[in-house]
């Protein structure tokens, strides 16, 4: 009996590894059979937002639901953009600097925020997000304010495919680091703290410290995503980083499934690519987006990432139903 169970698990693991390998091969060879630069552009944006969404999830599993994540992206983006445009520094320097700047701000604001419980953290993060943009506007001689920042030096001028491979690598690396972080000792402690802060503090764990750490790491990658975006899109404006953008990032995570590491990846991909496919519908596109959201929350409690497991349980129920009718 135990052996049968083991081989099922082993089979599942094999399936999962195969899926990943196939996926990686497809992604690596993508530019060979997708020639349209516009579609490559969409894929690049998806990769950037995958980094942002995954980093948001890390913060969320530490018990802090951030409604201002896009604003953290903006810190990284504008830092890199301004340094690149005004001082002419190369993106290879401005991007890490952007990420570090974002992390620094996160630590500064994270310290007082770490003591806040769930909904209050979310509200403060919401206001913080709006506040960041207001400050951005106040310094419009540097940031361009509502008009936006234009003329950021590019990473790889002219070649969408070069950018694609760069971001494929960057996203892969970021996901790897985030994954290791989540499943190492520190990561599991962070998740445990989120589950029950009473138990955690009784064991002598410094909850606030772990929360700030999660926020710092998450915001580092948010800043990295933002900085990458700056040097790819070459144009920054408030509309990319406003409250609605933060909410959308959260939606990508929730629809993908907050319980699973792959959740944000799947959620982002589905919610960016599918509306793009329906672009021809113009002003009706938001209906498609809303439709996906509704389907997911009513039918898939685990999000899209939980779909395979859910299908399996439906099949099992169906089989059980058949067995019952057969037996009677």
């Amino acid at each position, binding site marked *: 009996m135990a052996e049968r169970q083991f081989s099922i698990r082993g089979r599942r693991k094999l399936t999962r590894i195969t899926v990943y390998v196939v996926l990686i091969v497809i992604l690596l060879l993508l530019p060979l059979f997708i020639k349209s630069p516009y579609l490559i552009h969409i894929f690049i944006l998806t990769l950037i937002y995958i980094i942002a969404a995954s980093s948001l999830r890390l913060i969320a599993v530490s018990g802090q639901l951030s409604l201002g994540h896009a604003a953290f992206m903006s810190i990284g983006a504008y830092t890199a953009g301004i340094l690149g445009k005004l001082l002419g520094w190369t993106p290879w320097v401005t991007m890490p600097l952007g990420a570090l700047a974002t992390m620094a701000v996160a630590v500064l604001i994270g310290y007082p925020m770490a003591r806040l419980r*769930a909904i209050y953290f979310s509200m403060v993060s919401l206001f913080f997000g709006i506040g960041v943009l207001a400050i951005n506007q106040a310094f419009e001689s540097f940031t361009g304010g509502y008009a936006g920042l234009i003329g950021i030096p590019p990473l790889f001028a002219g070649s969408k495919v070069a950018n694609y491979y760069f971001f494929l690598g960057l996203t892969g690396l970021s996901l790897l680091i985030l994954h290791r972080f989540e499943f190492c000792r520190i990561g599991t402690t962070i998740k445990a703290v989120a589950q029950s802060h009473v138990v955690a503090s009784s064991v002598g764990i410094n909850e606030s410290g772990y929360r700030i750490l999660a926020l710092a790491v998450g915001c580092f990658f948010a800043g990295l995503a933002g900085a990458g975006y700056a040097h790819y899109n070459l144009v920054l404006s408030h509309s990319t980083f406003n409250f609605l953008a933060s909410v*959308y990032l959260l939606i990508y995570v929730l629809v993908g499934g907050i319980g699973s590491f792959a959740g944000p990846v799947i959620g982002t991909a589905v919610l960016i690519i599918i509306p793009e496919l329906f672009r021809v519908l113009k002003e009706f596109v938001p209906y498609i987006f809303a439709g996906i959201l509704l389907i997911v*929350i009513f039918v898939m409690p685990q999000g899209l990432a939980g779909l395979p497991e859910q299908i399996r349980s439906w099949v099992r129920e169906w089989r059980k139903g058949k067995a019952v009718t057969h037996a009677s």
Partner: protein
Amino acid sequence: METAVNATISALVLSSMYIVVALGFALLLSIMGVLNFAHGAIYMVGGYICYQFAVESGLNQWLSLLLSVIIVGSFGLFLEKFCFRPFLGDMYRTIVMAIAIILILETTVNVLVGVHIRSLPAFVPGILRAGAISLSAERLVTFAIGGVLLLALTWFIRKAKAGQQMLAVAQDVEGAALQGIDIHRISALACVMGCGLAAVAGSLMGAVFELSPFMGNYMLVKAIQLVILSGIGSIGGILVAGLIIGSIDATLPLFTSGAVTQAIGLGIIIVLLLFRPQGLFGREVA
């Protein structure tokens, strides 16, 4: 001097407008524990329905307001039963649901009515002048209505049986259920009232300002600011919070730019929340 008086008046009026918008949101958050991000969109729809009756169909504007309240309030019933009740307690899915509602409402209005800016005619036309001070009649009326609604709501919660039940649910859901209070009925009532209030706000603002399919987003953030500042669980505190934020928004732009005003306003709220997360009057949450 007259600038100061005018600024005070405009602070009071702006506060009352924010309060009217925030009341509905506060009801839902305090009583159902639901962060109804769609409140802004519902507020917008309320304004457009009033416009439809008042301008397109030519009915009396106050009657149109009433009709809008009834229609949007009924929509609140639908919302509570099918959109919020399945996900009570699940903040994540409530947020996703709210975004879906916003998208559907905004897109529908955008498609049906078009993006052409419309404005409701003033509910009470005319400008009142007293010396160097001048105030439009409709703003005064909005101020009055806001005050009346706030008083009515406070009375309802303190004196009416259903209101007391709402208070009980807001304080402790399980305890209230143990007392025999029908949670679903109370939540439905709260939702209907919340949506009705949003409709009033949308119609009034649609006349004082103007209507656009995306007008809800700004007001949503203001409503959240008011409610969080006042604290979850407190309805009367909305008055104080409204006065604070309204005053900031009405007076600071006189001295500095709009962006700095916003930054300062938010900064104050953030600092307050960091030290007192339950807001000014909210209940302590474990």
